[in-house]
């Protein structure tokens, strides 16, 4: 047992986590594949309908229909389609977009993903830091009275989904005060690249979406942190540190916060799914260039391949984050040894 903790992650635990990860992705991918098959709409006919609405009428409609079916692999038996689909997922091949024919879906996803990831990492880290700091200060004895009132008051936002806070911030700071641009992820007149103008524009456009996520998520961390801090506060080693006459601030950071923060990391793994989807909705409101806008446009255009691909990527992202948090956890908390169960 003691040996296992020194060598890092035990194989059994690793295998268990990896299995859960693959099962999650497989089940999600299968569900996403089955649902459209239940639909009465034939994608080939839908595509032909799109052509017809553009051109007025289409010659050789039957021929084109058959061609499209072969192209999408719709003439093959279902099980074969399923395995082709799974194989394609492995190489991130989601087919071509119907609305932006013939752009591959993977190309559209690759363009949107950096925006989503950038915004997410940025806002999640800020929320985590602010939230835990707020929670720690709420429980700490030396905190000024003002903060003890102000922090719980700010936490009323915790219960509100980020779309609502996004709308409020957008109205206040973009529409009324006009401090920030209303929508988009960078200005119309800047050229993307590594120039200051562009970077400044990105920050300017990203502030409000990030803020609307931070405002509603920091309270979750703060609540958890406060609970953990109150239990840590009465521990013997904290009492001893106080008795030794260490500076209160030193005790707070080195003795209390360091011990209280660990379960917060676990909570992070459980929360990540909600964070990702919440952010996608924020992106849709702000017309931010990420996955949210991609998904919304695809819904409007009935662009099914894009919806499927985007959903798969989001699910993959969520499952991967949970896996990563699970795997790095033993390194953060050396006391945790991964035995058999949970």
């Amino acid at each position, binding site marked *: 047992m003691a040996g296992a903790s020194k060598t890092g992650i035990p194989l059994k635990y690793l295998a268990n986590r990896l299995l859960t990860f693959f099962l999650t992705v497989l089940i999600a991918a299968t569900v*996403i594949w089955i*649902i459209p098959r239940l639909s009465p709409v034939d994608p080939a006919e839908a595509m032909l309908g799109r052509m017809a609405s553009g051109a007025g009428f289409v010659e050789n409609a039957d021929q084109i229909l058959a061609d499209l079916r072969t192209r999408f692999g719709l003439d093959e038996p279902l099980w074969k389609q399923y395995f082709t689909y799974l194989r394609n997922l492995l190489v991130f091949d989601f087919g071509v977009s119907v609305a932006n024919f013939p752009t591959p879906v993977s190309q559209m996803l690759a363009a949107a993903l950096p925006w989503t990831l950038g915004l997410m990492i940025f806002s999640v880290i800020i929320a985590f830091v602010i939230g835990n700091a707020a929670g720690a200060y709420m429980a700490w004895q030396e905190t000024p009275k003002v903060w003890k009132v102000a922090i719980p008051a700010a936490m009323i936002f915790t219960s509100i*989904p980020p*779309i609502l806070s996004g709308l409020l911030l957008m109205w206040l700071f973009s529409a009324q005060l006009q401090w920030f641009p209303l929508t988009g992820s960078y200005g119309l007149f800047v050229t993307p690249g590594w120039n200051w103008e562009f970077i400044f524009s990105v920050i300017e456009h990203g502030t409000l979406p990030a803020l609307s996520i931070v405002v509603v998520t920091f309270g979750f961390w703060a609540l958890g942190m406060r609970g953990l801090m109150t239990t840590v506060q009465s521990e013997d080693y904290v009492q001893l540190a106080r008795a030794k006459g260490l500076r209160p601030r030193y005790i707070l950071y080195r003795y209390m916060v360091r011990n209280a923060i660990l379960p917060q990391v676990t909570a992070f793994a459980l929360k990540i*799914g*909600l964070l990702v*989807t919440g952010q996608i909705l924020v992106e849709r409101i702000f017309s931010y260039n990420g996955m949210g806008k991609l998904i*919304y446009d695809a819904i409007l255009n009935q662009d099914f391949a894009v919806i499927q691909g985007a959903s798969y990527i989001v*699910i993959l992202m*969520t499952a991967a984050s949970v896996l990563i948090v699970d795997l790095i956890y033993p390194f953060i908390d050396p006391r945790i040894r991964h035995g058999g169960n949970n």
Partner: protein
Amino acid sequence: MVESVPADDTATAAEAKAAWRREKRLKRFDTPWMNPKLLTGAGIILGILFFGLIGRILWNPDLVFIGSAPLNLPPLGFENLRGEGGSISHPLGTQSSGRDLLALLIVGAPNTLFIGVIASLIGMAFGILLGFSAGFIGGRTDDVIRVIADVMITIPPLMVLIVFQTSIGEVGILMMGVLLSGFMWQSPTRLIRAQVLSMRESGYVRMARLSGASTFDIMFKEMLPNLVPYLFGSFIAIVTTAIVTAVGLETLGLGPQRVPTLGRVIYEAIDSAALLQNMWWWWGLPTLLLAIMFIGLLLINLGLDEVSNPKLRKV
């Protein structure tokens, strides 16, 4: 002497009454269920329900239909961009296709709550069943249920529901709740399983087993009542998640489209650039109502935490 007796009598009677009152007050404060957070939260949610029910009687719900009112009117006491003032016949204003905001809120708010409650009731029923089976029966059953719950809890419901609704098409309120319930059973299952595991070896369960109670009786007559605060807490938590997910779908333009829901009203407002036209009442009022709803649910949850976790009560 003669006079003092009744005086004494009344004194003891008053004393007894005071003691009885004190005892009653002590008892009242001893009921963890009567904590202010829980009561405020429940009050808010009941208030919203009441608003929806009474509103249908006092206000005309037919005003939710397109073209049933003048367009773009501001709420009473405000002016819109065309300089029109609000009117008493549409006190919360109207939107760009002539629907009355007050009527939309009256009809939409209960619908939104209803979706959450349906999803959570179904989810909870499955959660109780699966959680008890996993925790109490154990073995292979436990393994299968645990793995499925662990796997399903990481799949974001919004993504699967987006796929569902874009391919299958429009759904009603009830169907929306049923669809959401597919993602609401995992966390109660995990919670109940953990609780049942820790209770399984406790004295009273052993006692029941020794006295020959059936598995069903032990599970639902002996153990379930002890879990009530946890069940309520879990229920409120999944109601919140369900409503958040439903509102998310609705703001993407999916979900029920023929019946107004708060999310749908917000979607139409964003879609018609209400922000640019400074029609704050259109998106702001449903947002506010939703925010109040979520705050109410949060307070209920915090209150229930105090019920199930006595340590929090003294803080």
